[in-house]
């Protein structure tokens, strides 16, 4: 998927069983429970979700839970429960179809969609392992009706754990 392409629509269950998909300006953040990159960026991404209440923020875990039990749906539910809830839904992509359709490579790997579900930013949250400046720049531009100046960066993290 290239910048400007229509992003695939989807509906995935969250840890409470509710279904979610892109709606308006949306951040689709492929992430997981076990990867140190995903864990390192986690707090920063939670804060982005809190700071942009008008943006739909969807965290999606696509990892093969058979080989990586820490990423099972049950483990996802337990993590959200232990945290006392998250400001955004944590979705399970059991079939990995959404991650495959988006071309997700790593956890984390971010896709920012405009209100017409077109891809406007793809890549890492920032240049380091905890900041979120690149993501915020993209959201600020989109919400101001502008093109993000930095539309694509290299996603950095653990590889998505595809089923074998």
């Amino acid at each position, binding site marked *: 998927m290239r910048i400007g392409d229509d992003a695939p629509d989807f509906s995935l269950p969250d840890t409470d069983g509710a279904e979610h998909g892109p709606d308006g300006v949306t951040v689709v953040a492929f992430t997981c429970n076990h990867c140190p990159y995903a864990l390192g960026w986690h707090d920063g991404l939670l804060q982005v979700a809190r700071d942009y209440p008008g943006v739909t923020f969807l965290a999606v875990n696509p990892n093969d839970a058979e080989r990586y039990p820490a990423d099972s749906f049950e483990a996802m539910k337990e993590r959200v429960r232990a945290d006392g809830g998250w400001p955004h839904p944590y979705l399970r992509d059991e079939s990995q179809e959404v991650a495959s359709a988006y071309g997700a490579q790593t956890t984390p790997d971010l896709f920012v969609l405009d209100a017409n579900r077109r891809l406007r930013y793809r890549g890492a949250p920032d240049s380091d392992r905890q900041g979120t400046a690149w993501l915020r720049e993209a959201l600020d531009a989109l919400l101001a009706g502008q093109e993000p100046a930095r539309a694509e960066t290299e996603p950095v993290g*653990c590889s998505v754990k595809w089923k074998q």
Partner: protein
Amino acid sequence: MRVELLWWDGCPTHPETLEDLRTVLREEGLDAEVELVEVESDEQAARERFPGSPTIRLDGDDAFPCDPGEPFSLTCRVYRLRDGRVSPTPDRDDIRDALRRHAHADR
């Protein structure tokens, strides 16, 4: 001292850890080559007792021993930096301490 760096290509961190390791070895005046061991399968991970990438071994011992129940598999290893942040690489000062401990125990 035999120094090994075990790595898996699903994690992009081993070049950084290798650089840190070589830097600390040099700073500590330890004359040791770092042997690179690529781990490519779960079977090899179990055989090598590889808890994740990157793993540093000193004379065959994990520089940062895991909990006994830790599984061995192709995964990225989670470290904690000294400021408490989660990291995909060990803190350089923790590498230094591990090398010093090991060198001291070796005497």
